[in-house]
């Protein structure tokens, strides 16, 4: 029982960072109908950037987030304009899978040339301090990571619901044709939306680097988790991404503590397949647009 509750606590605390990554990915899908396979690589790039800022200039990852998000926002816009915009509309959904995978490989190559393939981690002064509450251990760094992810998600929420740009994005997600008729410029929304997705990846990456060791190949693990989270929640639904992250990370933490860590990966794939068997569109997804 103790192990179970400890697993749930751990799972909920880790869910924050996954929710952040997945919300960027599901946002990109919502706007452009593009499944971004480079999201994991972008997260790792964000982790490397804040690692570099920490080791060279001593800037705490929590403070470097504004810098890395702005840099990655620009990168995301560049990727959309250079590689995704030229694709023709009719075969965009299939080709964009391959193009974003190629971007992931490109980023992986660049990262492994720049930082080599040795495993890195951002070790802050508070990395190992922890509290014990009612016999359950809560590490400070995980709590920080959780709060930070929630804060970043809050910023994303405000951006989408309280600004003109956010309204344009939500209009495009709901109905691209009508949004265009009402004067929303689709190509601009796509570029900025992809940038926003990359920016959330950067924020998540800074947090991820605090929690886990990583190298340039880590994005394969990340992308498989992210895909199952966004599919579980329903592609295009940010709320779904948060719920999906909670389900995935608590279930794998419980399995890891109750059975064995080597089976925790397997758990959420099985959950995903079961959910898809009953609801092919995911928990909060809609059946629109021929994807299902």
């Amino acid at each position: 029982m103790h192990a179970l509750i400890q697993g749930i606590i751990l799972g909920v605390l880790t869910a924050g960072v996954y929710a952040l990554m997945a919300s960027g990915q599901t946002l990109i899908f919502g706007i452009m109908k593009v499944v971004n396979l480079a999201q994991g690589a972008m997260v790792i790039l964000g982790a490397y950037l804040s690692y570099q800022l920490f080791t060279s200039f001593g800037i705490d990852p929590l403070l470097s987030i504004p810098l890395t998000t702005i840099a990655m926002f620009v990168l995301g816009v560049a990727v959309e304009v250079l590689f995704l915009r030229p694709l023709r509309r009719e075969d965009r959904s299939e080709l964009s899978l391959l193009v974003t995978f190629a971007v992931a490989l490109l980023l992986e190559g660049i990262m492994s040339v720049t930082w080599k393939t040795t495993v890195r981690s951002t070790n802050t002064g508070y990395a190992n301090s922890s509290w014990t509450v009612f016999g359950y251990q809560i590490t400070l760094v995980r709590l920080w990571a959780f709060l930070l992810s929630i804060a970043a998600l809050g910023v994303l929420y405000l951006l989408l619901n309280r600004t003109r740009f956010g309204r344009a994005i939500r209009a495009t997600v709901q109905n691209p044709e009508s949004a265009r008729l009402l004067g929303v410029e689709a190509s601009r929304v796509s570029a900025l939306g992809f940038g926003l997705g990359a920016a959330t990846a950067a924020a998540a990456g800074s947090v991820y680097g605090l929690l886990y060791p990583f190298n340039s190949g880590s994005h394969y693990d990340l992308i498989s988790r992210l895909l199952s989270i966004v599919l579980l929640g329903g592609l295009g639904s940010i709320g779904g991404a948060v719920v999906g992250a909670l389900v995935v990370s608590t279930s794998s933490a419980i399995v890891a503590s109750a059975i064995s860590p080597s089976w925790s990966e397997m758990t959420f794939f099985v959950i995903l397949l079961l959910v898809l068997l009953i609801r092919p569109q995911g928990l909060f997804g809609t059946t629109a647009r021929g994807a299902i």
Partner: protein
Amino acid sequence: MTAARYLGPAKGIAFFAILASLPSFNIAHWVLNIAVFTLMYAVMSSSWNLVGGFAGYPSLGHAAFFGIGAYGTALWFQHHAITSGYEPFELLPLIGILAALLGLPVAMIAMRTRSDVFAIVTITLLFVTQTLAFNLRSLTHGAQGLSIAVAPFSARTYERPFYYVLLLLLALAMGISLGAMRSKLGLSLAAVRADEDKARGIGVRTFGVKLLSFSISVGLTAMVGGIWAYYEGFIYPQFAIDPLVTIAIVLMTFLGGRATLWGPVLGAFILETAQQTLAYSLGGSQFYLIAYAMVFLLVMLLMPRGIVPSIQAGLRRRRRKAAVDAAGSQGNAADTKDRGVRSTLSTVKGSA
């Protein structure tokens, strides 16, 4: 007209004759080694094309079945001796049939979704299979991997049996593709690709043809996996079930041209040789990954429809132009009129 009718079979016979005579030219081992890998990918992209090209279901899970074939062979020969060296090849039909049967329930689940969601579901299956290969240690020995006895072929002609079996498999895969293209199956698959709901509405058995194409496709892929395991002699989970294998297959098919007979083969011949050469020249260093990704991106952006369809479109355009010219020389009046229109157009363009 009659010449055109024999062009297709002639092309096929010439292609296979050249490939079959290749090993007898006493070429270097490393070249034949590349040829073996190229044939593996040619078979796999041809069979991927059945699902991803003809039916329009972009599976990213084929590497899982490649791995199942590889583990099938490796596991069988943990308990059975290899004497003549040809037993692993004799086992291949069985592996193909078992993998095809296994593909049926998988397709039943996965093919409830379409396009990009289908791609994600299948890549999830790939990761599940990889995790199983790592974790079922009593069966697969986990990360330690499995080894297969070295084939008792003479070192001088070691690659040849693998090469010829793969060539046979390529003929089979292309034969199935051709058969599908010429039959009702291909027509049904094309209808599924164009508009599945409408196809079902007019009475196409969409569910059946989807399942059939998926299971044939993964059966062939598993057979290649079996040959690969025997050729390599050692298999590890991360190489036997590798997302990069899937991506390579998909990329080759896209490069050559989806839903064409020769496209996937052409794509495999170009990309696999390029990749092997890149790996040789930039070997080890991570620049190889960057170079590969750049090639990848250029292909996707410059030739989104693939080589074969682009050439076909070009030929059609030329033929049409030739027909117009022939008609033009007969009636000069029409020709001058046409030229008049064209010059007006160019002046309009010039002034604008």
